[in-house]
């Protein structure tokens, strides 16, 4: 929780424009907080986090999608072989992908990464731990 507030304050500094879309994290400083909707994820398992967050972009089957730009697939993606990579992407973001990890606890980041690395046909070895995630923040 503390971490969440911290990261929100960080983004909240960004600008007047954040007020536009009041419920996004950035709005916290100026335009109010959870009154505009569920900002935090709250309790959720790795699978639930995938369904409620990652699927918005990577699709429910984790196969990604393509338009003028693309969402890479997480299913069958060899870049997930080393757990630290997806964990880092979730914590720090990557290009158009926001740092979703700011909405999640260390354990939740580990859970969702482990879930993705062991489902959708993925059978990658080894598990990411909450400590690993903590070190990436």
């Amino acid at each position, binding site marked *: 929780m503390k971490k969440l507030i911290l990261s929100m304050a960080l983004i909240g500094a960004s600008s007047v424009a954040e007020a536009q879309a009041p419920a996004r994290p950035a709005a916290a400083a100026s335009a109010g907080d959870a009154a*505009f909707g569920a900002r935090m994820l709250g309790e959720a398992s790795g699978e639930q986090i995938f369904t409620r967050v990652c699927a918005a972009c990577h699709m429910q089957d984790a196969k990604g999608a393509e338009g003028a730009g693309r969402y890479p697939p997480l299913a069958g993606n060899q870049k997930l072989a080393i757990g630290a990579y997806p964990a880092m992407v979730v914590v720090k973001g990557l290009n158009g992908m926001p740092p979703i990890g700011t909405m999640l606890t260390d354990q939740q980041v580990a859970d969702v990464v482990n879930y993705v690395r062991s489902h959708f046909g993925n059978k990658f070895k080894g598990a990411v731990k909450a400590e690993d995630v903590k070190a990436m923040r």
Partner: protein
Amino acid sequence: MISDLSPQTRRDLLTMIGRAGGGLAMYQAMTALGHAAETQFSGPPALSGARAGASVLVLGAGLAGMLAAYELTKAGYKVQVLEYQDRPGGRNYSVRGGDKIVEVGGATQNVAYQPGNYLNPGPWRIPHHHRTLLHYCKAFGVELEPFIQLNHNAMVHRKDAFGGKPQRYKELAVDFTGHVSELLGKSLNAGALDSTVSKEDKEKLIAALREWGALDGDLKFTSNLNVSSRRGYDRAPGGGVNGAPTPSKINGLSDVLSSHVWTQMSFYFNYVMQTTMFQPKGGMDMIGKGFYKQIAKLVRLNTKVTSIKQDDKGVAATWTDTVTGKTGVATADYMVCTLPATILAQLDIQVSDAKKAAIKAIPYSGQVKIGLEMKSRFWEEKYSIYGGHSFTDQAIGLISYPNYDFFKDKPAVLLGAFANGAGGYMLAGMTPEKRIEAALAQGSVFHPEEYRREFMNGASVAWSRMPWILGCCGMWTEESRATHYQNLVSMDGRIVLAGEHASYYGCWMEGALLSSLDAITRLHQRALAA
């Protein structure tokens, strides 16, 4: 203040300052003269004298791209615009009956709204100080009408406040102000603030609290007719025999605090959220259409740009026609690129490493809007709510009532969700059918009897699923601004970027326009100097 100058001389003076010191000096001077503090817009750019045959390629036909095309054509450039979608306007977008919404991943909605009804899935409100946008709306004949922003009679809902029962904004706001005033009055009278507040100020403050907080003679916030004249009555004033009103009962401090109403109160304090606000009559896309009318013949729709190159002679963009599959290369002397950073970050583009890094440093938010068509305007008839927003801490964020066709006996489209953050992702990840179900279930807290009964059909736009942008708006932090902003907006050889993301007014149409004006002004200077 130089108040004895006639407007004409004042303008001349400003132009002189502008010439001598550039835009910023002019802006500062205007501010000192007391008439520009609210905007960086100082009128349409006076670009002229482009070299014969000089050409500009504009990528993207959103507002930034179309404004660039319009003003550069006026300045004498040969302009071509490439646009991925089958319509101009970009995020300036309205959804109507008969439209199809196709998401990445293939989910398709056929919108069934009645004629005249619409959803503004992206931009929906315009602050009175967004002078650039207002200027071009007027110039292009786009009719504006009021957007009802603050409605005291709309509602506030939190799952863990008032047993989950929504409360009227005015009641919570008056109660919050009243309780806070009473507490501050108490501390003042107890001398708790004597070391920080002078005697005269203390007297003034107490008078202020009495008035501002609607406190009684003993500086107490209580249920009485004076307070009811703000928060509403138990029995409203009437005529004749039973004309006398009876007061309503105020809520206790703890209950009021549990509602977090201060978040709404301070939301309305925001510079960009203050009344008066506007919307175009007939849908937000009337603005995009207004621009398009000026430059339609310059635009190639259904054209997906796939790479961007430049050398010392000119620029080139390769493209694919999304309908015929035909490919081609468009060339020009210069380029204004307004593609969203999400798309640009994945494109093969020939610019400096610093600019590439800047493009990759802008993640996008993922809002979701849902428009529910209802058989009747029950929120007006039964709840006396005419426009404005009812807020909730559920995923949908809020519901918002239409600002047009008041009192009409026909179906109307209600905004059933404006979701952000976790709520936005959650709704975006659902099928369109499930989104509607979630919106009905959550929105029912406000109008439990009518919501499902009056529902006819609905449509949703999940911005992270829109193929041509994969997101809603660019998100900057103080750190990323410091490291990357100047690199993003700098002219790079023959290429300059523009758009909402290249401004300090991110996620506003005004930002897209101001960014475009700045970009083409610099491009023009460069072209003349070459």
